[in-house]
């Protein structure tokens, strides 16, 4: 029935106080939701970061192992180079010593440095010069010394001197160097 000249105003369950309360709750819920979303995002971000860091760590570990291997290799190379340098130094010293041993009157035409010996070819004015001035110091260095002579056209003597060190002594020296 509508006997009234006007229609009633719409009545809403939501009063102004309730409206205010709902707005407050709505804002609170929105803020909570935003906080939740922010935390969820941050959590996801941290997880992702954690995975990335894990991966980086793994890479670094791998790199570290590789680098350690490299270091070992380089150290090995360094030791080898040192050894070679030492050997070269020794060799150089030996050659210097060897040339220091040769007197002025004797002329060398060929010198062969062996692992366990020294072979010298040269010319000497006579056997005595050779024996006193070259063979004597060679004998003090080498265990076995063999010399052979043959005459040259000018009256001098060609000589071949073969000097050897015993094998056992060489190996002991090597061990000591290592």
């Amino acid at each position: 029935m509508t006997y009234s000249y006007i229609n009633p105003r719409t009545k809403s369950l939501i009063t102004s106080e309730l409206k205010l309360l709902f707005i407050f709750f709505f804002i609170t819920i929105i803020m909570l939701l935003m906080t939740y979303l922010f935390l969820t995002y941050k959590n996801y971000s941290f997880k992702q970061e954690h995975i990335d860091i894990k991966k980086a760590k793994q890479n670094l570990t791998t790199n570290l192992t590789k680098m350690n291997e490299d270091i070992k290799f380089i150290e090995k190379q360094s030791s080898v180079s040192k050894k070679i340098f030492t050997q070269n130094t020794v060799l150089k010293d030996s050659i210097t010593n060897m040339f220091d041993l040769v007197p002025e009157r004797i002329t060398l035409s060929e010198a062969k440095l062996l692992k366990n010996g020294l072979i010298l070819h040269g010319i000497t004015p006579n056997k005595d010069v050779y024996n006193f001035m070259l063979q004597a110091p060679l004998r003090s260095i080498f265990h076995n010394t063999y010399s052979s002579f043959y005459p040259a056209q000018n009256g001098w003597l060609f000589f071949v001197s073969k000097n050897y060190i015993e094998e056992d002594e060489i190996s002991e020296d090597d061990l000591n160097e290592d």
Partner: protein
Amino acid sequence: MLDKIGSFLYHKVFVNIYIKDDSINIYVEKNSSKTLVLSDEKNFKTNTVDENIINYINSFTKDTPYFYISILDPSTTQGAAPTCEHIEIDKFYDKALSKYGCYKNKWSYYTSKYDLDEVNSNFREIGLDFIFSPFIILANFFQDKIDSNLSIFLLIQESSIALSIFDNSNLLFAQYLNLKNEFESESFSIDDDNDDEITLDEVQEESIDLDSVDVDDSLDDLDVFGDIEDLDSIEEIDEFTDVDDELEEEDIALKNHSNKNHSLSESEELFDEDYQMFSAVQGSIKTFYEDEKYNSEFIESIYIADSIGVSGDLKSYLEEEIFLNVYIRQIDLGSEISKLAQVELK
């Protein structure tokens, strides 16, 4: 759904307003689902919505969003017509200028759109949900009598009367009588021998064409004038003169008995009001019988819904002067408006 939840959570408050002569009466009902929790009524000596009224209404409505403010239409240009047909309505009121409704597809009630806007504007601070026509209140109040009688039904308020004539629930005639205006026009026309209701057309029709007059005709006319002497109105005037005399005597006695002049003025006022109501009703009945628009039927009884407590004088006038059987029933307007508002919501 939300409304159902709301009705469980909140009371429904019905604020019912009806305007009296120089005051506004507010009747408030607070209902919990179907039971009446609280009712209160207060009269405010003001003609406009002031702070007291707003505070009073807010004290009931602040706790619930489900409050309905109803008002009894105070418009002076309202009424009812015995038809709901759009074509016939124009005979009784201007549709364009009026807001109208149909009661059970039998008769219509209307009010001025301008007045409706004015009411809405006057009460905009509190807002209105329902504006009811007093004819609806009257029809609902006398539902049991309207359905089975041919009678006049009156709703008497302080400064107005809603008059309707029903014949077995069919409206024959209705008029809204504004007593303030009626009284002013009555008092103004007391010396005019009650000729104010004769229209210019009637005067022209009844005027004598001197050219066509012959002696016999003039004699016949004289006979007609002889009948005029039997008019009830003359008797009424005599009788009212008697009443006046009686009242004068009463007044003199009262004056002698005490010097309290205001009791005299009160009785005069009561007499004035009752006579004013009586003459307004009498005028309406006369219109009903005379106006060809209405199906005039002979009426023997009158039912009065009395909201102000009329004195026995009105009843005696109606019984003695118009020979009607008078039945008076007290009406609580606030409660009736509230009932109507509650029915509207169903």
